């Protein structure tokens, strides 16, 4: 056998992965369905909130948030954005996307901030985590869409899970960076006064890493929005739908308004959250 001609496949990794996922789906689908439950609950909650509220109230809520955190211009921009998506006939899709994005960010924060803190405090943990984060950021989402669908079935929850994979790394990295940027003298001072490691985290590191963590949350939010179209491919619904539909049927107009709504929504959420982070 000639090992260096590369004429034939020696390592059948593709088959192994295939078999592994098949085995998981066949034997342990119930576990994955259980994982779905909290995400589904969170998503349904937000979706219910945004869809049952009269549109005027939703616009008002965002306008108030923009006014408090980001100023007059962002307030006007928010109102115009909502009016426009409403008049474009995309109100319901926008609300679904909002619920999905907020749920994604919520679960990203739940996992990402603790992971970031741990990797900020331990070089070894960071070293272990780094390849995983690199993989999550660079693997094309199409690669993990199929197994996600196989394990969690089609729908918005799968969309959220795919989004989490994609949007989690910047939050972990920026949280870790924030923790590491705290001046060592401050930690030394806290220790000198008899602080326990937990107190050092709670009273010194975490509050001082807050700006960096907020920047991470903002990045996560932006990346979650950029996943909206891909999530629509696995039936997540929302603003990705018109874009996917437009692509499939070559209706350029439909794709355009979907894309426009996503961009406007992203800009609005970015400005409001950045304003919030600055406070």
């Amino acid at each position, binding site marked *: 056998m000639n090992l260096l001609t590369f004429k034939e496949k020696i390592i059948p990794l593709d088959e192994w992965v295939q078999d592994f996922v098949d085995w998981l789906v066949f034997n342990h689908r119930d576990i994955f369905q259980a994982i779905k439950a909290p995400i589904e609950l969170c998503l349904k909650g937000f979706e219910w909130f945004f869809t049952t509220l009269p549109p005027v109230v939703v616009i008002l809520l965002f306008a108030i948030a923009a006014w408090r955190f980001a100023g007059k211009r962002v307030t006007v921009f928010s109102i115009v954005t909502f009016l426009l998506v409403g008049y474009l006939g995309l109100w319901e899709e926008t609300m679904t996307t909002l619920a999905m994005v907020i749920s994604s960010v919520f679960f990203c924060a739940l996992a990402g901030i603790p992971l970031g803190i741990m990797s900020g405090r331990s070089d070894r943990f960071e070293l272990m985590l780094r390849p995983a984060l690199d993989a999550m950021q660079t693997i094309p989402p199409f690669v993990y869409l199929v197994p996600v669908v196989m394990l969690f079935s089609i729908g918005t929850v799968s969309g959220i899970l795919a989004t989490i994979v994609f949007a989690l790394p910047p939050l972990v990295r920026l949280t870790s960076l924030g923790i590491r940027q705290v001046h060592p*003298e*401050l930690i030394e001072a806290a220790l*000198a*006064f*008899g602080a326990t490691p937990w107190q050092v985290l709670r009273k010194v590191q975490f509050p001082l890493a807050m700006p960096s963590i907020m920047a991470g949350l903002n990045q996560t939010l932006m990346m979650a929005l950029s996943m909206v179209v891909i999530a629509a491919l696995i039936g997540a619904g929302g603003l990705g739908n018109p874009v996917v539909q437009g692509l499939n049927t070559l209706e350029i107009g439909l794709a355009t308004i979907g894309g426009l709504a996503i961009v406007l929504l992203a800009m609005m959420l970015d400005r409001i959250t950045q304003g919030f982070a600055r406070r």
Partner: protein
Amino acid sequence: MSREVKVAVNNLFKIFGPHPKKAMALLRDGLDKEIIFEKTETTVGVQNASFEIYKGEIFVIMGLSGSGKSTMVRMLNRLIEPTAGEVLIDGENIVSKSDEEMVKLRRAKLSMVFQSFALMPHMTVLQNAAFGLEIAGVDKETREARALQALEQVGLEAWAASKPEELSGGMQQRVGLARGLAVDPDILLMDEAFSALDPLIRTEMQDELLKLQAKAKRTIVFISHDLDEAMRIGDRIAIMEGGRVVQVGTPEDILQNPADDYVRAFFRGVDPTNILTAGDIASDTQVTIRITDGRNPRAALQRLIKNDRDYGYVIDSEDRFQGIVSTDSLRELIERTDSEHLLKNAYIKEAGSANATDSMQEILPEVASHPWALPVLDEDGRYLGAISKNLFLRTLHRGHQEEQAAVAASNEGEY
């Protein structure tokens, strides 16, 4: 003053780097720290340091950068783990304590002031001052009351609601000091606490510290690279060089008997008149006349003539200084017929005296303006000795000579 030992450091070592055990073995074999670094890539931070710090004193650890003084102070509260040796606080060896016990000990007995201030930028001045108490779990009302008291001590109560960044460097360090004082520590560690401040503010802060120390005698361990600072505030000074403690003593001790050239070089350029006191240089070579056996001016005169001296120092039975007589004033008294022949009638009227704690600078006018040696008294008025012009000049000259010798030595080294 009580000499109760508060902190004892015994054969303390700190070795940084990958092979502390190997380095320790080489150190025991008597190798140099440079050679050890070449062989093992291991840095000797502190080697075989032993000294005692007494309760209620300001103990200055002085040395140039890299001498291991910052490492030393951090081993006293175990922010840095010693490699070998022991640190006893109130007789308890803290090196063998667990992390939990160390947390308790730091809360109960220690606090620290940092060169970079190390104030929490996200907290107000009041919250910063209350930080140690917050860590110790003191409730909000109590800790803020105590923090406010501490801020009052350093004159910053009006700034309680400000953020540290709004304050000048000197004020920030006052907050740092207030934070250290608020927990009412047994031992206050000050790591180059005033080094980042400009000279005027630094002097002001030193005065502030001395004032606070006069009110409540704390044990203060003060790290400094500044000799003037060490001399001003230190009750005793430890001098470190290359991780070793080369000399421990009062500023006067070290100035008068430097242990080696390194210590001597430190004092080059130091004006001895600022540091040496009258008590340090007074000599008791003058003739003293006890008032009990010298009722008779004639006997006193005899004693002076016999010792070939012009002036005599009259003391009572308890050594208390009474006055100065001269051969001239005694003769004059003996020849007079209008007054009693009592010794006190022969005292020189212009003769003054100095306290043992007066600096050389302060006594200079008195020494210079009279032909007799200036008597030096202790706090109870007892005669300790006297300082003649000659003695004064010799002291100055010796300082000068040492300076020149040190300059010559360093010049030789350069060429």
